[in-house]
Every structure is written in C-alpha cells, then in structure tokens.
C-alpha cells in the first residue's frame, strides 16, 4: 500500500515536471505540505475505553502533495487534480485522491458548447461551512468537517452557456464512496468502516455501476447569482451506518461488517447570492426525496432513509480598519434540517440546526498575514460546539506557514457517535509548512 502510494506521489512530481516548459498548452499549480498535529487530550470515548479499538495516535506527522494540471489546445481541454498523503504513523491516512481527471471538447464564441467525460469534484455550495447542495462526491471524513476533501465522481457532462446563463446535464454512472477515518484516527469513532452499499427501491445493490442523472442551471437575475439543480443519485453526504440483515427463524439479525449505506435520492434545490448594501446575502435550500429502500439495521436501530429538506442562510460583512489598513470579514451562517425528528436529524448530518459565526482578519500586507476564527454552535445541543482558529502568513514567494487549533465540545455517548460526538475530546493544535510551486 505504502509502496503504491509512493509511486503515485512520484507520478504527481513527474507530471508536474512535464508541464514546466514555457509556451506549453499545459499549466500547473499545487503545493507540498508538511503537517504536524497533536491532540491535546487522551481519547476516553466508550469504544476506546471498552477496548473496541486499539491505540489512537496522539500526534501525527504527515506529508501531502497536491497537484492540478490543465491542458488546453484548440477545442480540447483536459484537467487533472488530486493529492496524495503520507502519514508517519497511521498507514490508513496514506491515500491518493483523484479529484478531477477529465477531458472535454468545446466550441467557443458568444455561445459555448462542451461535452466532457472523466472524474470531477462538484462544489455548488455558496456557504462557508454548511453545504446543503453538495451530496455528490465521496468525501474523506478524516478531513476538516466544515469542508471535507472530496473524491472525483465519474461523470459525463454536457454544457451550454450563453452570456451569464449556463445549463449543464450530467450522467453519473459509478458513485464514488466515502473514505472513513481509520479505527486509529482521532477523527473517527474508533470503529473502522470499509464496506459500502447502495440502497435503492430494489433493495441493496451489489452492482457498483448505477446510473445517476443531474441538471444544473446558473443564472444572473436582478444582480443575484442564482443556481438551480435537480439531482438523481446516491447521497454521499448523509449515509446510514449499519449492517446488512438476514432473517433466521423469523428474526431479523445483523450480519457482516459495519457498512456505509448510500440512499438513492431526488434532490431539488439551489442557491442565491446577492449583495444588499454592505451585506453579502446567501441562501441555499434543497429538498431530498429518497427512493424507498429496505430497512437498514443501523447502529441506532432499524431505519430507512427519510426524505427531508435543508436550508442554510448566510451573511457576510466586510469592514476596513482604516488606522491599520486591515480588512475584517465577519460572516454568519445558520442551517436547519426540516421534516425530521430531532433524533433522526442527529443521525442524518453532523450539522442539524447549527449556527456559525466567523471572522477573517486580513492584515493586507506583503506577507498576506491572516487570522481566521470560526465557532459552530449546535442550537439543539447547546453544549456542543466547535471553535476553529488559525494564523497564516507567507514566508516568501514559495513558502507559507499556518498554525491552527480545533476545539470541540461534544458529548460522550454510547454506541456509534452522531453529529459532533465523534469529535469528543479531539481538540488539536497543528502546524503546516507549505511549499507552493
């Protein structure tokens, strides 16, 4: 596994070298990051203390290489982007994520047509932390909870654009799965989840090729950026964790390994962003209508995917500290799941009814010094909150330093954790040294 990853990471370096020639249709960007992270407390959750899992590392040193390469010549475009991570201790944090790997042909003028195929990451959300629209890509759940790293989704894509209006049609034939934290990862629950299943109206599917569809429209209406979509695919953002079942003498019993189940869903929704005087106002709404599936024996009882809505509302306000020449951006977001009972909502998403308040303090100097502070408060479980802070600055044209902390105030519950519970006692500090190229 490690050898394979070394080869993959080496491939990223070679690819990078190929595109350095000037006057080339190729262009590239990326970075190499050294990270040291240290968890402040020993883990004392039930899985760990009851011996369900082995040692969880209190500190990690990791190396990450991220690369994005673009090619454009004539009517052909291609892009590769992805990253590989090597961890000094937790071998299950060693992996390569392909984000984009696609090619397309296009016809450009005042109108634009393109047809493309390959892996793509979709970020349709307009928000900082709550992303109701984003259910498509598989994600690394051992990354930042407010912006998970994503795995590219195999896609066929048709686009027509004219002026500020854009229409896209998608086919997604092969759903990418989530990557769960290892049993040794502090971001996890102490239980490893490596098996996956797709749930639709015909029950659980063993065949991975399952066609999904989607439509996206982007418009500029009355100074507002409006985006609308319809998606019919497997929801990777709200999986159920449980077991397959078998019936013995009339009793339904769990069988096999713990699995992540992804429900087939129709999702309708969109986003609106518009400046109103001094404020940037954002609204994101979706409704998820799950195609009926069998009951799933989850760690919290027998359940089905339940249709629901999600709304997120955000405000952003920038002020200038004239005496210092600094900018401060204040932002707030609130989200809520609708149509679900509280305990079901808790099992559905990390964020059920949460309030985010944040600030970015930009020093506006040559070193791009910036302080960022975000707090996320669970409005249903007032005792649960996260505080995420960082300081970053450029060291020179190539190097950047980032120091940060993440503090979680989350309950310690029995069973597989829901919501923020997985982060109980997982406060950490980290140092990132990043070399851009």
């Amino acid at each position, binding site marked *: 596994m490690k050898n394979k990853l070394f080869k993959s990471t080496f491939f990223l370096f070679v690819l990078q070298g190929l595109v350095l020639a000037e006057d080339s249709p190729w262009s590239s960007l990326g970075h190499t990051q050294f990270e040291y992270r240290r968890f402040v407390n020993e883990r004392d959750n039930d899985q760990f203390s009851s011996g369900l899992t082995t040692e969880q590392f209190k500190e990690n040193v990791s190396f990450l290489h991220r690369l994005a390469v673009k090619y454009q010549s004539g009517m052909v475009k291609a892009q590769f982007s992805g990253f590989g991570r090597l961890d000094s201790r937790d071998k299950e944090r060693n992996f390569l994520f392909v984000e984009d790997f696609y090619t397309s042909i296009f016809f450009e003028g005042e109108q634009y047509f393109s047809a493309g195929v390959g892996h793509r990451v979709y970020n349709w959300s307009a928000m900082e932390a709550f992303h109701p629209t984003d259910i498509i890509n598989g994600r690394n759940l051992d990354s930042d909870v407010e912006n998970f790293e994503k795995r590219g989704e195999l896609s066929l894509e048709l686009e027509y654009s004219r002026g*500020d209006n854009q229409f896209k049609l998608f086919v997604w034939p092969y759903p990418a799965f989530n990557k769960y934290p290892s049993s040794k990862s502090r971001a996890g629950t102490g239980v490893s989840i490596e098996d996956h299943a797709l749930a639709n109206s015909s029950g659980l599917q063993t065949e991975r090729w399952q066609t999904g569809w989607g439509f996206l429209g*982007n418009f500029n209406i009355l100074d507002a950026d409006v985006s609308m979509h319809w998606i019919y695919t497997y929801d990777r953002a709200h999986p159920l964790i449980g077991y397959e079942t078998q019936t013995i003498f009339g009793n339904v019993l769990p069988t096999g390994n713990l699995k992540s189940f992804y429900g087939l869903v129709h999702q309708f929704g969109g986003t609106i962003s518009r400046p109103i005087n001094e404020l940037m106002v954002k609204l994101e709404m979706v409704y998820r209508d799950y195609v009926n599936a069998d009951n799933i024996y989850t760690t919290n009882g027998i359940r089905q995917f339940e249709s629901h809505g999600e709304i997120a509302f955000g405000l952003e306000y920038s002020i200038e500290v004239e005496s210092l020449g600094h900018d401060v951006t204040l932002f707030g977001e609130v989200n809520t799941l609708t149509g679900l009972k509280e305990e079901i909502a808790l099992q559905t998403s990390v964020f059920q009814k949460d309030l985010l308040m944040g600030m970015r303090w930009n020093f506006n100097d040559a070193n791009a010094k910036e302080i960022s502070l975000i707090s996320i408060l669970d409005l249903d479980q007032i005792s649960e909150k996260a505080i995420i802070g960082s300081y970053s600055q450029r060291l020179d*044209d190539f190097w950047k330093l980032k120091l940060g902390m993440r503090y979680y105030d989350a309950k310690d519950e029995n069973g597989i954790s829901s919501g923020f519970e997985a982060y109980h006692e997982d406060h950490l500090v980290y140092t990132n040294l990043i070399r851009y190229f």
Partner: protein
Amino acid sequence: MKVFLSIIGALFVNYSVFAETPEVKGTRIAQQVKAYNTGFIGESSSMKMTLVDAYGTKTERLMDGIGLEVPEDGNKFIMMFNRPHDVKGTKMLTWGHKDKDDDQWLYLPSLKRVKRISSRTRSSSFMGSEFSYEDLGSQEIEKYHYTFLKDSIVGKDAVWVLQRISRKKSGYSKEIVYISKKMHQAVKVEYFDRKNELLKIGTFSDFKEFKVGDKTFFRPSQIHMKNKQTKKESYFVVLSRQLGVKHANRKFSKNALK
C-alpha cells in the same frame, strides 16, 4: 450679414465658455477624456508589480489581465494571479458599473469554487501593495464629482489639473488628477486620505501608442505609487499589452472562471 452673425456667434460661444463653472469644465474634460478613450474594444496584458518597503526590500507579484469594453455600462475585466505561488490560479472578475457598486467574483482554485465578494472594501490594499482596489478598479466618470483646477505642465506634457471626489464610499477625501492634453491619460494623481492629508502620489510613465481601427490610444507601461506617509512604494509595470482584442462576452461570466 455673415460677418455679423459670425461675430454674434463667437460672442455667444465665448460667453458660454466664460460662464462654464470649474465643476462644469471639470466634468466636460472628464467626458472628453472618456470619449477619447472609447473604442479600444478589449485588452490583454501581463503585469508585474514590485513592492518596496520602507527598508528597500523588494517583493514581486505577477499577473495577467483581460478586459472588455462595455460602452453602455462599466467595463469588465479579469485579473489572473500568477505569483506569489500561493495565489497562483486565483482569478478576480469585476463588472464595473456607472451608477452602482461594481460586481466582483473570486475564483479560488484551492476550493474549486467561485465566490461572490463585496466590492465595498475598495480602499483595501491590492496584494499588500500601495495600490488599492479602488486605484485599479473601474473609474467610470459617473462615479465622481469633477472640478477643474488649472492648466499646468508635468514634465513635457501640457495637462489639465482636475479634482475628483468619489460619489460613493472611498478611501480618499479627494484626488488631484493631472491629465495629459495630448494623450488624454492621467500622468500623475495625488491621493488625499480621509483627513484630507496627502497620502500617495501615483506617477504614470512610459506611455505606449496603440492603433485600434482609425483611433490612437495611449496607455502607461509603468505606474509608480509612493506612499508619502509610510514611505513604502510600489511599481506596476505592464510587460505586454494588446488593445483591440475581441474577447467573447462569455469569458467575463462567473461560470467561465473555473
């Protein structure tokens, strides 16, 4: 009879000129400058910005830009950042407007996302330099009150000296603009802070001539911005520039930034 009418006509013309207030004359010159500079169609350029701190330490920034002339409203332009490397691939799209705040979007390659941003913090420093977003953004004449101050000479250029005050929120209480009568371009601008004290002086030099159709345009290849209060300075050098480039309007859509 013709002679009589000519004399009467000349008197009226002279009277109207004498009656022109400094505000009317300032606005008329600004409109004249705008008319002179209309018709460039589109622009492509690559630029280098050098930041010099109070101790003389230099830092460089590289960027490319494309612009589209929109005669009925403000112009559109995209700035693409190349260096420092942590901002490589970042793009900023601005739609200038005559009668309202500009619209701005930022494409962040690290997030693979286009973000709508507020253009209200116009007086903020541009990439840590002595230039502000306001200095480099759209400067539609409808956004300013103009007052003619005097005729003068800067270097070898005969200039109009105008005062302009932003109608919108600005980092400056006023700007004194020296406009070349030959090139119809600013050759010097003095920026006054909100306490009405001299903050910065921008000097525009190394003008190049561009032909687009039957019109001739002048554009500076270097802008030197000296902060008189902090002693810091920045140089903005245009490494290459083309005028008359016909960019598709679609390129200036937020959807095309990715």
